[in-house]
C-alpha cells in the first residue's frame, strides 16, 4: 500500500465509541431474532422462525 495516498487517520476517541456500544445489544438482538429465536423468548418467535426459515438454513445457523 502506498503510504503517500493513505495518511494515518487519527483514531476516534474511545469515549465516542463507548457511547455507540449501546447499539451492540440492539444489533445482536436483531441477529438473534433472525438466527436463533425459536419462540422461547418472543411470542412471535415461532412465526418469525418459520418466516425466516430458509434464511436461517442458508446462513448456516442451527435450525431444528
Amino acid at each position, binding site marked *: 500500500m502506498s503510504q503517500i495516498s493513505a495518511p494515518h487517520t487519527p483514531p476516534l476517541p474511545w469515549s465516542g465509541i463507548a457511547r455507540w456500544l449501546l447499539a451492540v445489544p440492539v444489533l445482536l438482538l436483531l441477529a438473534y431474532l433472525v438466527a436463533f429465536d425459536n419462540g422461547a423468548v418472543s411470542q412471535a418467535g415461532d412465526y418469525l422462525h418459520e418466516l425466516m426459515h430458509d434464511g436461517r438454513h442458508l446462513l448456516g*445457523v442451527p435450525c431444528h
Partner: protein
Amino acid sequence: MIAKLIVRGLLAGLLAGLLAAVFAYTAGEPHIDSAIALEEAAAASQPEAAHDHDHGEEPVVSRDGQRFGLFLALALYGTAAGGLFALAFAALRGRAGPRSEPVLALSLAGAAFVAVVLVPFLKYPANPPAVGDPETIGRRTVLYLVIVVVGLLAVAAAGAAYRLAANGPAPARWLAGGAGFLVPAGAALALMPTVDEVPAGFPATLLWDFRIASLGTQVVLWAAVGALYALATHRATRPASRPATAATPA
C-alpha cells in the same frame, strides 16, 4: 463522525444482505426444496412421527412466504452485521490494521468472515431441512455460539500475535499471526464435540450442494459488506480531489 461510519455500515450491510439473498435464492432455494421433498416423503412413510414436525400438513408460513422471508432474514442479518462491522471499523481505524481505510474495510470483512463463518462452518456446517434432530437444537445452538466466539478470539489472537512480532521481519510477523489464529482455532476444531445427525440415506450430493450454497451466501454477504464499505469510505475520504464546481456553476 462515528454516527456517519455506523450509518454507512448499516446501509452497506442491508445492501449486502439483499445481494446475498439474491444469491441464496438462486443457488440455495432449489436444494431446500429438494430437502423438504425428501423430508415430506420420509414423514409420509411414518405418519405417527409427523405430528410435531415443522414441515407438517399446516405450515405456519407457506413456502412462498419462506422464500420472501429469505430476503427479510438476510436483509436484517446483513444490517446487524454491517452495524457491528462499522463499530469494529471505527474502533480499529487509526489504531490497528492497514492504514488505508478501504484496505482496512476489506481486511476487516475478511477477518469477520473467517471468524463468524469459516471457523464455525468447518466444525458445524450448514444443514438443509430434514438434517438435524429437533431434540438437540438447544445443544447445537450452544455449540454453534461457542465456536463463533472461538472464531472471534482466534482472529483477535492472530492480530495480537502479529502486533507482538511487529518489530520482526515480515515472515516472522506472518508466522506469528498464522500461529495465533491456527492454535486456538485448530484446538477448538479438534476438541469440540462432533455433531452428525445426517439421516441414513440422505443424498450426499444434495448435502454438499446445499452446504456450498450456504457458504457462498455468506461469502457474498461479507464480500459485499467489505466492498461496499470500502467504496463508501473511498468516496468519502477524497472530496477535495474532485472539485465541486459541477454542482455550483459560477
